[in-house]
């Protein structure tokens, strides 16, 4: 266990390198459903973060007593409880927002992100590490929600967080706040992140390759010629 990533590494990992949405494709349902505007996206991110952190803390605290076959049961019970608390809380203090989010708050229960963090990290690590991990993952999740919501709200309504950022003459792209817009934006952003990763990997590989190519260039040509001649017969 001491070999695993440290608390700070786990924290950073969650934000970009192992971003739950862009890298692990977890918890896609709220990412698509509540990102028509920034405000519900932020609320959803906060609710998810609350559940994720609380559940991670509890699971980490009781990790010594977990029986393998009851593990998932305990996870689900914990998560469902915190989701209920979050849901009631929103209904009590952010009533309008809870109406906008609708069934997607309770759906946090089946968000694979949370159960996978409980399983992979919290049930094996100390509270400190588990919290760092949960916060990192929450930030990563928030980042994803915010990025998608930004695109959708700006293009779809010309506003950001309700503030007008594009001129009044901007023709709102209604599709962006509709379901197809969610799929398209997430698909394109996902491709963008992927492209960025590939570009970086290629650049790193290029440095190595340029050395080896200068060494192998000649022999490679010879091999090709040999191959060609062997087919002539």
């Amino acid at each position, binding site marked *: 266990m001491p070999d695993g990533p440290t608390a700070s590494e786990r924290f950073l990992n969650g934000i970009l390198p192992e971003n739950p949405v862009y890298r692990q494709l977890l918890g896609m349902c709220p990412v698509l459903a509540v990102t*028509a505007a920034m405000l519900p996206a932020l609320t959803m991110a906060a609710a998810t973060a609350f559940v994720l952190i609380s559940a991670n803390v509890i699971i980490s605290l*009781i990790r010594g*007593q*977990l*029986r393998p076959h*009851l593990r998932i*049961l*305990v996870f689900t*019970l*914990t998560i469902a*409880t915190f989701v*209920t*608390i979050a849901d*009631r*809380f929103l*209904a*009590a*203090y952010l*009533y309008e927002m809870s*109406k906008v989010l609708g069934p997607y708050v309770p759906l946090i229960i089946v968000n694979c992100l949370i159960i996978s963090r409980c399983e992979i990290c919290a049930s094996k690590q100390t509270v400190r590490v588990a919290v760092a991990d949960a916060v990192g993952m929450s930030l990563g999740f928030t980042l994803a929600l915010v990025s998608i919501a930004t695109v959708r709200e700006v293009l*779809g*309504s010309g506003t950001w967080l309700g503030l007008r950022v594009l001129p009044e003459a901007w023709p*709102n792209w*209604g599709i962006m*706040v*509709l379901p197809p817009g969610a799929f398209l934006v997430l698909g394109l952003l996902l491709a963008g992140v992927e492209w960025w990763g590939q570009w970086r990997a290629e650049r790193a590989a290029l440095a190595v390759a340029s050395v080896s190519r200068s060494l192998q260039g000649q022999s490679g040509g010879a091999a090709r010629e040999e191959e060609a001649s062997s087919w002539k017969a």
Partner: protein
Amino acid sequence: MTNSRKIRGYLQQAWLVLLLAGAYGGALAGVQMTLAPRIAENRRRETYQTIPQLVPGADRERTVELWISDREGNPARVYRTHDAEGRHNGWVLPASGPGFADDIGLLIGLDASLKKLTGMYVLDQRETPGLGDYIRDADFRRQFQGHAADTPIEAVKSDPQEQQIVVLSGATVSSSSVCRIINTAIARMRGPLLQSQAAASAAGGDAREQEL
């Protein structure tokens, strides 16, 4: 002997789950106790805030929530509104039904005699942004005022006559859905409401006192 051992075995395995279940149950009960009144208040406030708009002259504070059996005998919520002097001056019916994208939730204002529509308000909707969601606009809602409540309202594209409203351009479905929800709700509740009124006036007492 074996039974008790079995039970002990189960307990050894499940004590954590039971403990957690207990703790969580307690926490949820606490949350429910603390927040439930607030949530109920939120819901109430949402409705009550709009009541002066729906029934002209109605006093928010004097509105009463009632449960009345509808035409088919199912319980339904209605609001009985009173003016500042406490005189019964109208009804507000919550109603909902399918719209273009999802269910639309409405509040319908009627005068005390249930003869006229006095207003309409959209509580919940997920209609197409920039198109169907204009059903929330005051211009669209104002169209419903003053129509008779005993015949259905319909949506037309242009030149509205009696009992007709003009649809939002490009959002025919949203507009006609609203009409449909209103028609259904009134048809469902008119009879029972008239009956309860008759009963109340027959009893001669203040309906408000009775229902409470």
